[in-house]
């Protein structure tokens, strides 16, 4: 087995009673990697994380941490630290006590405890808060303490279970940056659960996208974003969602084109994974930012569409267009404004598009 694996999960299955939550899951996480588990609510992310932490017993399979089989070990012996969505700070203890609790339980000498606490506090810049109780902290400060609690334990692997989802948008984006910084300075392995794709895209070295207990794709963010393995991944990532057009392939001229609702789109520039057969029923996926409008169109064909709704979002402007029966969302710069009902011309950037089989929904 490759030595560089920090956490390795083999054939893991877990059921609650008759409900199978995880099934035959395999996952290898490299040393120092920042892995994000992304998936919609209830897909089993927390369950997987709890298995790694030892808080849930797998029904079958094994878990290795640092090449040691820890499947049956107690959470504290696994060399992991965990940060929870609701912070889970001990409400009756001061921040300092919160941080040192685990160490005191383990019976570490006092000066060692003090050293570690002050190191964690300085890394997280919470020194002034050490004497306060959790109730006296703001959300972001609580989150930092929760991270600190994992930090003092000097562990190899950090587990985060949606650590930012209770915070408001502004704080979330600030703490996101801090976690990223922390990872850069500590270089620990981190496994991070979220259902927020922005968090996943910005933080991850690799993202594992889960759906009902199965990992759909495990890749770096760029690949996931640009070359989704299947339609689920494609639709799950990106906001607003990728535009999907149902249609079929047809031979036109000397190449193959995509036909949908009367319009036909040339597939020039599309990186094909397999041979394209005419007549095959497929779905074309194009992200809103890969559709050019009016002046932006750089050659190629153009189609006509009507502006239905305009959503200005500050930096960007989101258009919802009607085109041949489909509603298509398009992202343009924040400065470009359109009137509702206006007719525009659009062009697809096929180099960035995806084609999926209509049946299997796998990428072609």
């Amino acid at each position, binding site marked *: 087995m490759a030595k560089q694996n920090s956490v390795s999960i*083999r054939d893991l299955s877990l059921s609650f*009673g008759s409900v199978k939550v995880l099934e035959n899951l395999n996952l290898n996480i490299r040393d120092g990697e920042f892995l994000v588990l992304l998936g919609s609510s209830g897909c089993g992310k927390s369950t997987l994380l709890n298995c790694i932490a030892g808080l849930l017993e797998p029904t*079958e399979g*094994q878990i290795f941490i640092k*090449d*040691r*089989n820890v*499947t*049956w070990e107690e959470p504290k012996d696994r060399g992991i630290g965990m940060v929870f969505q609701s912070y889970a700070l001990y409400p009756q203890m001061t921040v300092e006590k919160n941080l040192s609790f685990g160490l005191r339980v383990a019976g570490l000498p006092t000066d060692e405890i003090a050293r570690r606490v002050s190191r964690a506090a300085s890394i997280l810049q919470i020194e002034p808060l050490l004497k306060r109780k959790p109730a006296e902290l703001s959300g972001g400060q609580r989150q930092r303490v929760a991270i600190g609690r994992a930090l003092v334990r000097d562990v190899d692997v950090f587990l985060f279970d949606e650590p930012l989802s209770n915070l408001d948008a502004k704080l979330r984006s600030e703490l996101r940056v801090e976690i990223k910084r922390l990872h850069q300075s500590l270089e620990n392995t981190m496994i991070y659960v979220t259902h927020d794709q922005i968090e996943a895209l910005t933080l991850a070295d690799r993202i594992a996208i889960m759906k009902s207990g199965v990992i759909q794709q495990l890749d770096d963010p760029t690949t996931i974003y640009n070359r989704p393995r299947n339609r689920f991944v494609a639709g799950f990532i990106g906001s607003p969602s990728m535009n999907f057009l149902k249609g079929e392939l047809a031979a036109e001229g000397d190449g193959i084109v995509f036909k949908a609702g009367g319009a036909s789109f040339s597939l020039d520039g599309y990186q094909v994974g397999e041979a394209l057969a005419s007549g095959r029923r497929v779905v074309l996926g194009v992200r809103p930012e890969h559709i050019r409008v009016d002046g932006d169109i750089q050659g190629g064909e153009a189609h006509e569409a009507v502006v239905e709704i305009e959503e200005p979002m500050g930096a960007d402007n989101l258009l919802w267009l009607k085109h041949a029966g489909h509603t298509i969302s398009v992202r343009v710069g924040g400065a470009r404004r359109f009137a509702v009902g206006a007719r525009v011309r659009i062009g697809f950037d096929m180099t960035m598009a995806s084609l999926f089989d209509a049946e299997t929904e796998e990428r072609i």
Partner: protein
Amino acid sequence: MAAQSPSGRPNQLFRNLNAKIASIPMMLVALVIFLGGTVWTVFYSFTNSRLLPRLSFVGLDQYERLWASSRWIISIQNLAIYGILSLIFSLVVGFVLAALMDQKIRFENTFRTIFLYPFALSFIVTGLVWQWVLNPEFGIQSVIRSLGWTSFAFDPLYDPDIVIYGILIAALWQGTGLVMCLMLAGLRGIDEDIWKAARVDGIPMWQTYLLIVIPMMRPVFITTLVLIASGIVKVYDLVVAQTSGGPGNASEVPAKYVYDYMFQAQNLGQGFAASTMMLLTVAIIIIPWAYLEFGGRKHG
């Protein structure tokens, strides 16, 4: 190391050993006392044990005699009347009080304390006090008569037809405060937005309570039901203190039948048969409920 087999799985018995050790008292109580005691009781109900448990079996004789006894029949009837009425009244009175208390009233603490304090008193005391208040010579009847209504009659404890209601008055006095508290806690747990939504919809207060809030308080009602119902089945002290089952045997209840036959009549077999019948009734009511509550959503 990939070869390390899953047989490294430690013995399941020793997982969470401390939790299991700590649960031993609970398990012992459940098994030895409640289950064991029950089995023991049922077992000896088929004997003709007198003062001491003896293994001389008589089949169903004790049950036949039990159901032939008019006192037992009356006890069962009384329990049914008392049980149903006290359930209804506790819930209704408790809920109405709680609803009134929930109107952001002044002196809430005072009212709550007043409603709740009887719960601190034992049934013996409760029975005693109400026996006195309802006593025709000293109590309400005499006071009202002395005010001029000489024909006024209110002596529930000495009238076999209504004595059980006299007991009910005392029982409600003692127990509704707790129900009120439970209901109040339940009401406070209702989402504030529901009230607002109902107001915006223009739904009158009483309909909001009846059609929206009460259905939402199901868990509270269930907890309350368990508390009241377990009290009803066990009612004994109150009857003893208030009427000793009298006049005649008009206010007898099953628990008293059990006690009297076990210890006064020194006929354990008969007492056990009666308790078995009580247990059976309880089981018929409880087990389906327990199944729904605890079996249905295992990992709550």
